[in-house]
């Protein structure tokens, strides 16, 4: 069985002179991953508990979101008549009842046959699609998840691949919080697509059992946009770093925000390029010394929340990797938001950034919720989005639930099934002749 504690034994807890962290009155649920009273560290040390929902943590998904998740699940699972992604695509290949149909090329049958053999210990009952019993190791566990024979817990998202992050890295907390948010929202692993770029944190999809796409540096938002438009039933979550999102991917970031496509954009902001071993990033403070800024960074840093507000983002939040529970709540709210949602995560890099440490953030971070901030008030939101320095606001800074997501602004896009579900031969002879007629 895989180890569900992705970073067991790998964590050293940095000493905090403040002990109690910044959120004295924060809710603590000891059953939740990483949840320890007063903890400012992200990573949990114990195994994730499967059913940590006892605290009723986080608001229940609103009817719309819940419905979407459930409906998406059914449709994705799909009977051939309604939801088959490929099954309804080509009647010459896929026939009802599962026959492979005419295979135009040698080899197709062989590959198909190979798929039928339960080659990795699954105890499935063969071709009928019956539910295999769980317990046959990794495959059995996955089969059980696939058939949703178990209740959804963070176990469903557990990967057998251990993160390669440094002990104490803020990315552990982000990974855990994301899993917890997805479980809280009752989103199953096959219903989500986690898209990342390049960088330490962008390896996250490798460490979670969910659909994932680790793309190239700076481009995950564009790739995610294509995925979402092709299949709006998928919950698309983008996870990448400050260099990836605010630097090389800056143009995509600006346009994705004003586009308001329904994506969750988690930016692991450690104010440094870590995977290339310590160069200054778009969010590095002026004067920050690195190998590429030996005399101190000459530019003023990007304040992402300010740009996001100015560009028209409809959901702007900041989380702190040292506070995984609150971060999970913020992630859940961001995923629920219909439209683009930015979560700028303060993510300490314990190896290369000796300035912006857990303690540095903990001294400055405060919860806007506890101050009674109204995130729907644009004037107050603008103030919070501009705040940085001695006090750093954490929480949902701005939300506009009235803006239409991009998908609903395009005529015809939401009125039909996702393009990936419609048969390739939908045009038909009459359709082709109709299009040709315009050229006579």
């Amino acid at each position: 069985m895989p180890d569900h504690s992705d970073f067991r034994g790998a964590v050293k807890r940095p000493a905090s002179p403040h002990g109690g962290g910044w959120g004295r009155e924060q809710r603590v649920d000891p059953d939740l991953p990483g949840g320890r009273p007063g903890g400012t560290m992200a990573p949990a040390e114990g195994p994730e508990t499967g059913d940590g929902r006892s605290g009723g943590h986080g608001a229940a998904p609103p009817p719309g979101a819940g419905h979407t998740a459930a409906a998406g699940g059914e449709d994705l699972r799909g009977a051939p008549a309604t939801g088959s992604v490929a099954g309804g695509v080509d009647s010459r290949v896929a026939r009802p009842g599962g026959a492979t149909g005419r295979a135009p090329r040698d080899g197709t049958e062989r590959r198909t046959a190979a798929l039928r053999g339960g080659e990795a210990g699954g105890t499935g009952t063969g071709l009928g699609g019956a539910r295999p019993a769980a317990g046959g190791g990794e495959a059995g566990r996955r089969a059980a998840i696939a058939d949703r024979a178990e209740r959804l817990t963070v176990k469903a998202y557990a990967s057998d691949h251990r993160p390669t992050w440094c002990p104490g890295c803020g990315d552990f907390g982000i990974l855990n919080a994301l899993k917890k948010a997805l479980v809280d929202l009752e989103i199953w692993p096959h219903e989500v697509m986690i898209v990342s770029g390049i960088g330490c944190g962008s390896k996250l999809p490798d460490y979670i059992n969910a659909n994932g796409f680790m793309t190239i540096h700076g481009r995950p938002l564009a790739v995610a946009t294509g995925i979402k438009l092709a299949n709006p039933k998928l919950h698309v979550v983008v996870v990448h770093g400050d260099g990836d999102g605010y630097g090389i991917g800056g143009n995509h970031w600006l346009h994705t925000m004003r586009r308001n496509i329904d994506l969750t954009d988690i930016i692991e902001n450690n104010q440094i390029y870590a995977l290339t071993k310590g160069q200054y990033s778009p969010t590095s403070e002026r004067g920050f010394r690195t190998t590429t800024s030996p005399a101190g960074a000459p530019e003023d840093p990007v304040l992402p929340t300010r740009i996001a507000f100015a560009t028209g983002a409809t959901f702007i939040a900041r989380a702190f990797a040292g506070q995984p529970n609150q971060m999970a709540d913020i992630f859940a709210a961001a995923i629920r938001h219909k439209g683009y949602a930015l979560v700028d995560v303060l993510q300490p890099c314990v190896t290369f950034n000796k300035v912006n440490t857990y303690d540095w953030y903990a001294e400055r971070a405060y919860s806007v919720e506890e101050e009674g901030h109204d995130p729907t008030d644009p004037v107050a939101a603008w103030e919070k989005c501009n705040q940085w320095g001695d006090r750093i606001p954490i929480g949902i800074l701005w939300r506009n639930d009235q803006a239409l997501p991009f998908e609903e602004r395009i005529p015809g896009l939401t009125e039909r099934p996702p393009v990936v579900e419609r048969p390739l031969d939908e045009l038909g002879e009459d359709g082709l002749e109709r299009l040709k007629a315009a050229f006579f």
Partner: protein
Amino acid sequence: MPAHHDQHPRNGRAGAALAATPEPGTGAGPGAGTLDLSITIGGDAGQGVESSGAGFTRALARSGLHVFSITDYRSRIRGGHNFYQIRVADRPLYSHADPVHVLIGLTEETIKIHLDNLAPRAAVIYDQEFRHVDAEALRRHHVRPVPLPLAQVAKKHGSKVMMNTAALGAAAGLMNYNVEYLESVIKENFASKGDRVVEANLKVVREGWKLARDAAGDFPYTLPDPGGRPRRMVLHGNHAFALGAVAAGCRFIAAYPMTPGTSLFEWMVAHSQELGIVAKHAEDEIAAICMAIGAGHAGARAMISTSGGGFSLMVEALGMAGMVEVPVVLVVSQRGGPSTGLPTRTEQGDLLFAIHASQGEFPRIVLAPGTVDQCFEAAVRAFNLAEHYQTPVIVLLDQFLSTHLRAVEPDTFRWEDVRHDRATTLTHPQLDRLDGPYLRYRDTDDGISPRAIPGHPRAVYAISTDEHDEEGHISEEIRNRRQQMEKRMRKLDTAQAEMRGPAWYGPEDADLTLICWGSTYGPCREAVDLFNRDKGEGGRINLLHFSDLWPFPVEQTLPELRKIRRAVAVEQNYTSQFARLLRMMTGFEVHATVNKFDGRPMSPQEILTHVEGEVPVRA
């Protein structure tokens, strides 16, 4: 194999000479004895040259005549000389041709520029108010001046803007062409502007027709109304490709406007709601290709449309598609490079770039259809190949193919010929039966791993642009790297077997073979006909055309190369990129090359000017 010959006996230097317009021909073009005429409309940008030309082309095709039109314009919206050249004949056409028989000069400059490309007894239609037209000079060229009150007619029924309509009517009148065909096109083109505009234009076209008819006298170049012939589609390569794409099930296109790829994207956008296509104008080309790759991964048949500059920006993502094995189709309509180059003009300068673009090695497929007709099938094939081999497919068009209008037989694009190959994409019932872990990159004999569309609970997986293992997890292990690299590259071997070898045109027993690829097929084909008809006593030439460029169909090509006595590569570039590719892949050396890189498409006459000396004379 032919003996080695100087690679570039005519290269470059000869190409420069090709920029010059050939001497006026003698007679009515290559098809003397049969109908074969050319008409040029010239004027300033903003005078409606292109819309007039396209409308006239359509009107000519409606009577059953064959047409072939090229557009020549500059990268600006107002001012500067533009022209539109229409060739009309009673047999299928594959190229434009020189010289021209009727010139419509909407500006005086037009007449000066095109004077040297007029056939003897040609006519020049222009506004009688033009003050600097030297009618005597025209007559010295054996050209007939036809000054008419075009602007006056236009103003009488509306405004001077309709002068081009009056000129089209005049051209039809001069050539004794049934004005009803022009009227039918005008009714359709202006329908959206209301009855008054339609009526005004109809009055203008009729009056222009009558004025010219009365003045025509014994003008020799007339257009009969064949009547009763089947109507043909009139379209360019971009639209033919778009039709093929939607027939193939393409449901996603993302693009950033770039001439000459834009019209393909615009057609898809215009039909997106009707057909349920996602057509996204992206913030830049990098976003466009990444969106298409995202959509392709999600299971849509997805494409982009661009030109070389945009493709340059897409190169890193191209490698991503190759690495993560996501199908995507890239239409790259080449234009004159490098850099901004000649934005509205043609070139075949991106062949080797397309084959090699992006770091590292991965399988890709590169196609280059030769004609408008072939663009439809190339589109269907591109999507099937991309999905079957789970890899990017690049289709190289160029400005010439993307913009020239050609009459196409209606049954050329048939639904019954459209196949949808999803043999390597797993169906839902197949995934329902999957008991073990799903291996996205399963090592197989042909290198193709059955692909699950994300969203099925039994096939939850992550993919990575890092080297990865069969499951998709990042792995740098030696054994794994070798396995996955060999698996991916094996797809190229598998695909190579189904690539098409070159196609012959012309007599088998030829003394000289023109070798070309992509859109130069048409002009080369006409050059072959022209040469063999006119030079029957001498040697003969034929044509070997390549449309499948990568993986290069080596085995399919070698037997054909053995039939060649003397080879001349005809390319619209400076460095004979295809000749280099051919040598790299087969060891075959062409004997000579013809290169044109001035951005203007080749005419058959130009090709012959530079090939004739290469043809051995038969005893």
